[in-house]
């Protein structure tokens, strides 16, 4: 039955995570963007919300909460309202933990999930993107070939968050090229002590935005893994579903950034005077702000619809794809307009809006670096 209201629990999560993001993440955002360093204390504090451990079953030391894509979207949006890059950093372990939780074998779950239930931030990640303009999730060029009982992986990945500090990396590769989503599998690479054979991690990547997020290129050259490294064992994974979850989370972050930019521009427009009146009293500015408000709500509803479908176990490939592409466009337009509303002040780095514009552009360029 149609319902637009958050559950009480979701409301509570939204308030607590949102409060933290508004106060503490936001304050750290600009210095982190300039220095490329996210304060470990901030990450530790975020970790205390149980962003990863909450959903891990009690038997592995987690909170045992039911996983929900809607709740995940709410959390992602709130965190990214504080800062997109920091949100991606603190949620990065989900890229590894949640696919294992959802699709791993019993052995894989028992072996890895407990790592995420300690008091300290446990870095982990996934390698999905490849450094090509036409990179396509359904046509990966990273290949996993059977080799006896195990597999040999070859290919180049990029935009891998926290690759350097993660011992556990989930690498996605085509096991059956030409089969689209169905032909993709994931492999657990444990690069203990950084000497996993065949795995090379580049220098930290330099991107236009999301500069506080450490990402790396990862090269797989004749990288051999055992059979039990394949996520889900013989039955493999539902890659389409994982990507739908990722798109929902990533898009939700886009709404968070857009909302940050909207609120900032709105408040600025009410303060800033021109011709003796606040610029917000001019239709040219007021209509831009009204359009932002509409598009933020529309974007959020599209995301929630896709998420709710995922929560019911449905196939939300289409909904999440359309929602993510919609937000990639709407968040860019909104953050761009925020710069426009601030004029020259929007262009200088004293205000955060130029950073939000750079961050929002990443939505259209990147896929699969967020997981609900």
């Amino acid at each position: 039955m149609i319902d637009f209201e958050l559950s009480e629990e979701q409301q509570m999560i939204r308030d607590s995570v949102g409060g933290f993001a508004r106060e503490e993440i936001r304050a750290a955002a600009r210095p982190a963007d300039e220095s490329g360093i996210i304060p470990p204390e901030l990450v530790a504090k975020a970790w205390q919300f149980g962003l990863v451990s909450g959903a891990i079953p009690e038997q592995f030391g987690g909170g045992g909460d039911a996983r929900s894509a809607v709740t995940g979207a709410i959390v992602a949006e709130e965190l990214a309202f504080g800062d997109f890059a920091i949100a991606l950093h603190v949620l990065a372990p989900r890229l590894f933990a949640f696919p294992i939780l959802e699709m791993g074998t019993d052995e894989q779950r028992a072996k890895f999930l407990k790592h995420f239930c300690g008091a300290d931030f446990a870095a982990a990640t996934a390698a999905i993107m490849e450094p090509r303009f036409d990179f396509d999730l359904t046509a990966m060029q990273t290949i996993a070939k059977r080799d006896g009982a195990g597999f040999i992986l070859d290919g180049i990945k990029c935009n891998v968050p926290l690759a350097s500090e993660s011992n556990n990396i989930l690498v996605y590769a085509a096991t059956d090229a030409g089969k689209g989503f169905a032909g993709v599998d994931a492999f657990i690479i444990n690069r203990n002590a950084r000497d996993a054979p065949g795995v090379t991690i580049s220098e930290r990547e330099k991107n236009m935005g999301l500069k506080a997020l450490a990402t790396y290129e990862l090269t797989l050259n004749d990288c051999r893994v055992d059979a039990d490294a394949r996520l889900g064992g013989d039955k493999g994974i539902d890659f389409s579903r994982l990507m739908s979850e990722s798109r929902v989370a990533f898009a939700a972050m886009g709404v968070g950034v857009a909302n940050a930019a909207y609120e900032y521009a709105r408040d600025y427009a009410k303060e800033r005077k021109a011709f003796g009146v606040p610029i917000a009293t001019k239709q040219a500015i007021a209509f831009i702000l009204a359009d932002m408000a509409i598009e933020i709500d529309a974007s959020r509803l599209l995301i929630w619809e896709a998420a709710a479908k995922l929560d019911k176990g449905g196939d939300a490939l289409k909904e999440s794809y359309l929602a993510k592409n919609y937000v990639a466009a709407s968040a860019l337009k909104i953050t761009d307009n925020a710069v426009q509303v601030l004029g020259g002040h929007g262009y200088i780095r004293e205000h955060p809006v130029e950073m939000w514009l750079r961050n929002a552009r990443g939505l259209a360029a990147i896929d699969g670096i967020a997981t609900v």
Partner: protein
Amino acid sequence: MIDFELEPQVVNRLKMYRMVSEQMMRPISRDCDEHEHVKPTQFYESMWSASAMAEVQVGNDKDKAGDGAKADAGPKLRNLYTVLSTEELCWGDAGLFLSTPNAGLGGAAVMAAGTAEQKERFLKRFREGKPKWGAMAITEPGCGSDSAAVTTTATRDGDHWVINGTKIFCTAGEMAAEKSEGFVVVWATVDKSAGRAGIKPFVVEHNTPGMDVVRVENKLGIRASDTAAIVFDNCRVPFDHLLGSAEVKREGGFKDVMATFDATRPIVAAMAIGVGRAALDFVRDFLKEQKVAIRYGISPRRLTTIERDFMEMEVQLQAARLLTWRAAWMLDLGKRNSLEASMAKAKAGLAVTLITQKAVELLGPIGYSRKHLVEKWMRDAKINDIFEGTQQINMIIIARRILGYSSKELN
């Protein structure tokens, strides 16, 4: 708990509207569009007698009007349900939807401003006898969206009001005023010095002397629906035809009336969505026939132009639909929804204008041809960006609310 799934019971009921659309509207769509002022009387009769009438009668609240049995059988979220059924019927034909005999906006005004006794007295007719129409006359040649500027006057004369003025763009005005036993709710000022507080609604019965339909407009689209210009020349109506109280208060009155838009704007948005979905469905079927696949999930950089355009149409429609559902749902829960209703209306009007225009473009000569309905849907869709508050008026309402500005501060 966030949920966007319709209950099976609702889905089933919507199928009934789909049948009406397919069997009673689509077959006469083209003909009604080509013969603008010819009335599809058989359609009127069928719609009137159809049991579906209960829900079609926008603004005619059966619960309050005393016909509880039917309403009890329906879904609890009645504004949401009205929005859903409106979309379904406008998928059939928006012009015919607007021309369907019912209390219409006149009924909505009675419901919003009338006393319990007035509701019963004026709305009873829509549950019996021959097909009837209700209409609302608010726009004047000198004031459109600035509806507080009405110059039509109502002067007290003993037990009567005497109304003078000219109204235009009155939907179903001809049917309500002259061609059925309906009525027109006309907005007129009883005290010009009081500004908007002096503007009151009056029920003018069909064929009341002094009320004359002077013109029925020729339009770009929704041609099956009559849009009338009505002149009131010393038109006398009984005193108790003023809806609600005659007292001129600083607050209330006109403000309450503007609140009726909170209920009607989601419906207009739903009309737009129905037309947009008709165009989208046509394009989808067409592409399927031509074996053009739409590939969801691949890199957006590998999509063809047709895929991109189609997906854009699809998601714009869904964005508008979700905003519309939300606005109606809020109303059902008794929440104030002016902001959300205007958002839905503004988004839907614009989105569907673009979607239908894109449909014509995508199909080339086939889209432009009057052999198919796509070009008609583009013409029909445009009105949704205009009536019930233009795109721009709704943007002003949204802007005022998000900025916390009065109409003086942002105009």
